[in-house]
């Protein structure tokens, strides 16, 4: 089966996120009040060939840890999108 897997890579809690904080500071000037805790990360969409949903997620988690994220400063979260083929 072919599964759509979405990998979100976010700055780890406690690690400075200059992009997120710069965006957050810009919002009040544009009239968007009451927005806090802005974090900027990356999202990846992958089609993963695997035997099962669990296997697809496992494969995505492994490649996310090895390449898509830097575990020193980032956390990777994998989740399933919709099935895109069989």
């Amino acid at each position, binding site marked *: 089966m072919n599964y759509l897997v979405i990998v979100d890579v976010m700055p780890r809690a406690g*690690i400075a996120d*200059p992009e997120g904080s710069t965006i957050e500071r810009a919002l009040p000037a544009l009239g968007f009040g009451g927005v806090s805790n802005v974090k900027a990360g990356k999202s990846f969409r992958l089609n993963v060939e695997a035997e099962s949903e669990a296997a697809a997620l496992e494969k995505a988690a492994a490649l996310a840890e090895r390449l898509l994220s830097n575990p*020193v400063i980032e956390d990777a979260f994998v989740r399933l999108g919709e099935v895109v083929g069989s």
Partner: protein
Amino acid sequence: MRVGVVVFPGSNCEYDALGAMNTLGAKAEFVWHSVTDLSGYDAIILPGGFAHGDYLRPGAIARFSPVMAAVERFAAEGGPVLGICNGFQVLTEAGLLPGALQKNIGLTFLCQPTTLVVTSTNSVLTSGATVGQELVIPINHFSGAYTCDDATFASLLEHDQIVLRYKDNPNGSRGDVAGLANERGNVVGLMPHPERAMSTLLGSVDGRVLLESFLTAHVAA
């Protein structure tokens, strides 16, 4: 002394590094990133630039270039390895140096002379300098803010691995770190560019003491 200057697709400081090495009397040559045998070299430099376009993160793709397995072996055997700017980012991504380099605080690309303070001579890059010595060396980077967790930082201090600090922190680096070494002292990374501080004509000759150390250093096995 034969120095290999590794060239990745997107490196752009390799000529400066090569020129600096040859000025100091070494015999430097370029090493394409697909090379897997570094046995003919006495020292290796990973120069600045944007290896593999800096896609994903600076150094994230470069660390999987074939040459990096050879660099890892070279370092494990005690060979001197120097990562400058993007080369420093590659070394952290490869796990040859601890921590990571993040976007500068304020999201500003910085290109300016900086004053560095030598804080340890326990490395191939700083063995010929003196602790407390101030060096004016330019920086030129967007992702130069050093970061690591508390345990790693404590370990860096304990093993005297922070070799250069910014006198006036320009980028938000933890502990003002500008350059650091591995525990053994034979692998060093720094964000500033000593190879661009080789001539009074270009504003500073303070890079010489560092690169001369690198060329003469003998690493204890």
